[in-house]
C-alpha cells in the first residue's frame, strides 16, 4: 500500500514540475518581453527600459527567472507588476469572492446532473428523456455570454431588480439580514449560468455510463435471479455506474475557473476569473502565471484525492496498482 502511495506521489510531483514549466513558459512564448509592451511611448527611453528590466529581473536568462519566480512565489515575496502589491493576498481575497459562486455552482451541478442522467438512462427514449436531452443540448450550444445577456434582460425587465455585481450598488446602512438577502439574490444568476454547462456535460456522461451498465451481463443476471427492478437498478447498476464519477471531482475545478472569466466579466463580479482577465489586459505577468499555476495545482490535488478515493471504493484498482 505504501509503495503504491509513493508511486502516485512521485507521478504527481512530475506533473507538478511540468505544470510549473508550462505556466511560466506560456508567457514567454511571445516575441519580445514585458518591458517592450508599449514601444511607441516616448517616455520609455532605452535607459529607463534597462532600469525596469533590472528591477524586475527580466535581464536574466529564463532558467534563472524561472527559479526566482517560484522561489518568490513560495516565500510570498512575489509582487504584482501593476501595483506592487503582494500577489498571494490579492489572489486569496479574490478567491473568497468567487468561492460562493463555485460552491453554489458545484452544488447545482451535482444536484441536477445525477438525477437527470440516471432517469434519462433508466427510462431511455421516454418523453422525459427526450425532453431533457433537448434542453441539455440547447444549454451547451448557446454561447455563454449570449445566454447571460438574454437572462439579464429578462430578469431586469420583468422583476426590476439589480443583478450586476456582488451587491446592490450604493447599498449601505441596511440591517444585516437585508444585506445577506441582497448578496444571496446577486448570487443567483451568475451561479446558475456558471452551472449550466456543467449540468449539461455531466448529465450526458452519467446517462451514457448508466446505459452501459444497464446493458451489461451482470445486470441481466440480477434480473434473471428474479430481483425486483428497484434493487437491480439502484443497488446493482447504480453503484458501478457511478464509480467513474469519483474521478471527476478534481476535473471540475479547471472548468469552473476558466468559465468564471466570462461570467465574472459580465456580472462585474470581483472574483478570481475577473482578476485573471484584468491581469491579462494589463500584462501583469506574476498574477497570470500564479493563477494558471494555482488552478492547475488545485486540480492536481483534486485528482490526487479522487485517485485515493477510487482506490478505497474500487478494490480492482487497488489490486492492479499494487502489482
Amino acid at each position: 500500500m505504501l509503495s503504491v502511495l509513493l508511486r502516485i506521489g512521485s507521478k504527481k510531483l512530475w506533473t507538478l514540475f511540468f505544470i510549473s514549466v508550462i505556466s511560466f513558459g506560456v508567457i514567454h512564448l511571445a516575441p519580445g518581453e514585458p518591458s517592450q509592451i508599449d514601444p511607441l511611448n516616448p517616455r520609455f527611453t532605452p535607459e529607463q527600459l534597462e532600469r525596469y528590466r533590472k528591477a524586475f529581473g527580466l535581464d536574466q536568462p529564463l532558467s534563472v527567472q524561472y527559479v526566482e519566480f517560484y522561489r518568490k512565489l513560495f516565500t510570498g515575496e512575489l509582487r504584482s507588476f501593476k501595483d506592487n502589491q503582494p500577489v498571494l493576498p490579492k489572489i486569496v481575497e479574490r478567491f473568497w469572492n468567487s468561492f460562493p459562486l463555485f460552491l453554489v455552482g458545484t452544488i447545482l451541478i451535482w444536484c441536477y446532473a445525477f438525477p437527470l442522467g440516471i432517469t434519462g438512462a433508466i427510462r431511455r427514449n421516454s418523453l422525459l428523456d427526450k425532453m431533457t436531452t433537448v434542453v441539455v443540448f440547447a444549454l451547451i450550444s448557446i454561447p455563454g455570454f449570449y445566454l447571460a445577456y438574454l437572462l439579464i434582460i429578462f430578469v431586469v425587465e420583468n422583476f426590476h431588480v439589480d443583478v450586476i455585481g456582488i451587491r446592490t450598488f450604493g447599498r449601505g446602512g441596511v440591517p444585516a439580514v437585508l444585506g445577506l438577502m441582497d448578496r444571496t439574490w446577486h448570487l443567483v444568476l451568475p451561479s446558475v449560468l456558471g452551472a449550466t454547462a456543467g449540468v449539461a456535460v455531466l448529465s450526458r456522461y452519467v446517462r451514457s455510463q448508466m446505459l452501459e451498465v444497464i446493458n451489461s451481463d451482470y445486470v441481466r443476471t440480477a434480473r434473471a435471479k428474479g430481483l425486483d427492478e428497484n434493487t437491480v437498478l439502484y443497488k446493482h447498476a447504480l453503484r458501478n455506474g457511478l464509480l467513474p464519477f469519483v474521478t471527476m471531482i478534481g476535473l471540475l475545478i479547471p472548468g469552473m475557473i476558466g468559465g468564471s472569466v466570462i461570467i465574472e466579466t459580465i456580472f462585474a463580479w470581483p472574483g478570481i476569473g475577473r482578476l485573471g482577465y484584468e491581469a491579462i489586459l494589463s500584462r501583469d505577468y506574476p498574477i497570470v502565471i500564479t493563477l494558471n499555476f494555482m488552478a492547475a495545482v488545485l486540480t492536481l490535488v483534486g485528482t490526487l484525492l479522487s485517485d485515493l478515493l477510487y482506490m478505497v471504493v474500487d478494490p480492482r484498482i487497488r489490486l492492479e496498482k499494487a502489482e
Partner: protein
Amino acid sequence: MAAPLSPSRLAWRSFLRNRTALAGMVACILFFVVAILGLVMTKGENPILDPRQVRLADKFRPPLSIPDGDVLPAEDLPRLGMYLLGTDELGRDVFARMLEGAFVSLSVGFVAVGIAAAIGIILGGIAGYYGRVRIGIGTFRLMTVDTLIAGLIDVFLSFPTFFLILTVVAVLKPSIWNIMVVIGLTSWTGPARFVRAEILALREQDFVQAAHALGVSGRAIILRHLIPNALAPVLVSATLGIAAAILTESALSFLGFGVPPPDATWGNILADGKNFLFDAAWLTIIPGTAIFIVVLAFYVFGEGLREAFNPKLRQL
C-alpha cells in the same frame, strides 16, 4: 441467410434510426453548403455580396428594410435590393457578413480540431503501441513511454483550458491562425485518450499478431491496421470539438481576443452586436441564434455517432 453486417454497417444502421442525430447531420451539411456559398459570394475583387461595404447613411437598418436609394450611389446598393438581415453600426450588410463569417467560423473549428486530432492520434498511437518501452538516459531507466504520455495528458487536463487559451492568445496577439493553433494545441487530450485506449485493446487481437508474424513493421501496423480501427471515437470527439471550438472563438471575441477585424466570424459579429443590444437587437439575436443552431447540430450529430459506434449504447 444474409451475411452478417460489418460493425460499421451496423453502426450506420443504428445511426439512421436516430431521428435527432439525423436532423443534426442534415443541419451540419447545410451549414457546410452555406459556408462554401458564403466563401464564393463574399470573396474576391468584386464579390456578389460585399461584407466590407460601408454605408454610413444606412446604418442600423432592421432586417428586411429597403435601402435609401436617394442617398446611396447606385453601385453601393445591396444586390438583393434589401438588407435581408439588416445592417450594423457601419451600415455593413449583416447578411453578407454572416455568410463570410460562416466560412471563417467553420474553418476555425476545422483547423483547430484537425490539429487536436493529429496530435491526439500520434501521441495516443505511440502510447498505445509502444507504451511498454522504457525510456531513459544511458542505462538509467526513467519511465515507460506510456507513463510519459499519460503524464502529459494529466498536465494538460489540469489547466483551466479557457484561461490558458486566453493567456496565450493575449500574449501572442490575436490573429485567426493563433486562435486556431492555440485551441488545437490545448484540446488534443480527448482524442489521445480515446486512441490510446482503443489501440491497447486492438493490439492484443489476432489480426495484429498475424501482421507481426508476416514481418510488417511497427509503424505500418500502427498506421495501416490500428489507427483506422481506432478512428471512430476520434471522429466523434472531432464532431463535438468543432462545436466547442466555435463556442470558444465566440467567448474569446466577447473578451476582445477573438479573430480581429476585418475578418467576420459569427463570434465577433455577436460580440460587437451586444454593444447595441437595446437599439439594434438583431445584431445580437441573428449571430447568437445562428451559433446556437450550428453548435446544437454538431453536438446532436456527434452524440448520435457516439451512440451508434458504441455497441453498448447502440439501440437495435
